[in-house]
């Protein structure tokens, strides 16, 4: 390789290396701020590395699994209340007043955005369903004991929601 090419190669490699170093430092510094949501454990006990806890009145997102058997629905309105937990054992209560996404059900992963009104209680303004990376035909899912039932709303709830 002639010296000019060698010089350009070194420059180009140095450029890539430099940018990679800057980007990794930047991402390292921003690390926890790039998370989309708090886990329930982080809301209850604070973040693992920094101990930062969301304050009452703060607008946050919480992500976790809807606890099976925790959902309470008001028969006359769209008001629902359910618990969200994570694998580390934390649990927060989420209240919500609008239509839930189709994928929502107990045991499903969700991300709720709202205001923390008291420790461990979130008044959500938006509930998004998270789905995992597993796809399978319904027959297979049934054989594995997993099924998915949609929520149904009665007429009163449908008309009262808007």
């Amino acid at each position, binding site marked *: 390789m002639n010296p000019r090419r060698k010089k350009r190669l070194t420059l180009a490699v140095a450029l890539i290396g430099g940018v990679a170093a800057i980007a990794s430092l930047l991402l390292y510094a921003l690390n926890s701020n*790039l998370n*989309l949501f708090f*886990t329930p454990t982080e809301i209850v006990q604070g973040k693992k590395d920094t101990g930062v806890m969301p304050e009452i009145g703060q607008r946050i997102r919480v992500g976790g699994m809807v606890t099976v058997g925790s959902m309470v629905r008001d028969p006359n309105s769209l008001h629902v209340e359910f618990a969200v937990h994570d694998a580390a054992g934390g649990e927060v209560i989420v209240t919500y007043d609008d239509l839930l*996404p*189709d994928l929502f059900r107990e045991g499903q992963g969700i991300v709720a955005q709202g205001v923390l009104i008291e420790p461990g209680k979130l008044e959500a303004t938006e509930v*998004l*369903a998270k789905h995992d990376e597993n*796809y399978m035909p319904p027959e297979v899912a049934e054989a594995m004991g997993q099924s*998915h039932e949609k929520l149904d709303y009665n007429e009163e709830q449908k008309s009262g929601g808007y």
Partner: protein
Amino acid sequence: MWKWLHSYADPERAYKLSGTLLPWFAMLAISMIGIGTVWGLVFAPTDYQQGDSYRIIFIHVPAASMSMAAYMAMATSSFIGLVWQIKSADWAAAAIAPIGAVVTFIALVTGATWGKPMWGTWWVWDARLTSELVLLFLYLGVISLYASFEDKVLAARAAGILAIVGVINIPIIKYSVDWWSSLHQPSTIKITEESSMPTEMLYPLLINIMGFGVMIGAITLVRFRSEILARNGMRPWVRELAKAEGVK
């Protein structure tokens, strides 16, 4: 060792070679995307959670993964063009950029269309979605840098540096769902372990991914050929070609 490769950098030879390859790429792309799409949309089983809505995966995942692959191809060409000063490599990079931008756009739009019924929102600023949007802006930056210089050697150098710097975004897109909590789910297709999808869904998906790759290749060849002609308009072989085709 690489001396034999250098002869292909000659514009005339590159033009002819890409002309020979083009029909094969085009045929392969049409048949693979045809088979993959029909198989995926009609014959693949429905999903237990998402029903038929999940079928957009057969467009979304190929577009998204190939948007990254196209970027790597563009950055590699730019790198070769920058270090070895091979003009054909610069032209190839310039040829890929707009195709990559369109494929990235397709990935973003199909992703949003999928997100609305499943997640309940068109868009959320999570790490995966944001970094893919940054990829679109990188493509647009490369395209506009290449377009804004009259001197194309200078233009290729400027655009090439941006393309190489932008490579850092590719691992960020790929691992965003593992490094941070996000609304977007982690990868279904895994290279080192078994994919979390039955084969009757996986095969059409893989065929479509390869089909998208070949399609990007085919369109790149078309654009590469016209880029060669545009940059070599004064060369005798181009003039002869024009005369033979009956163009003034």
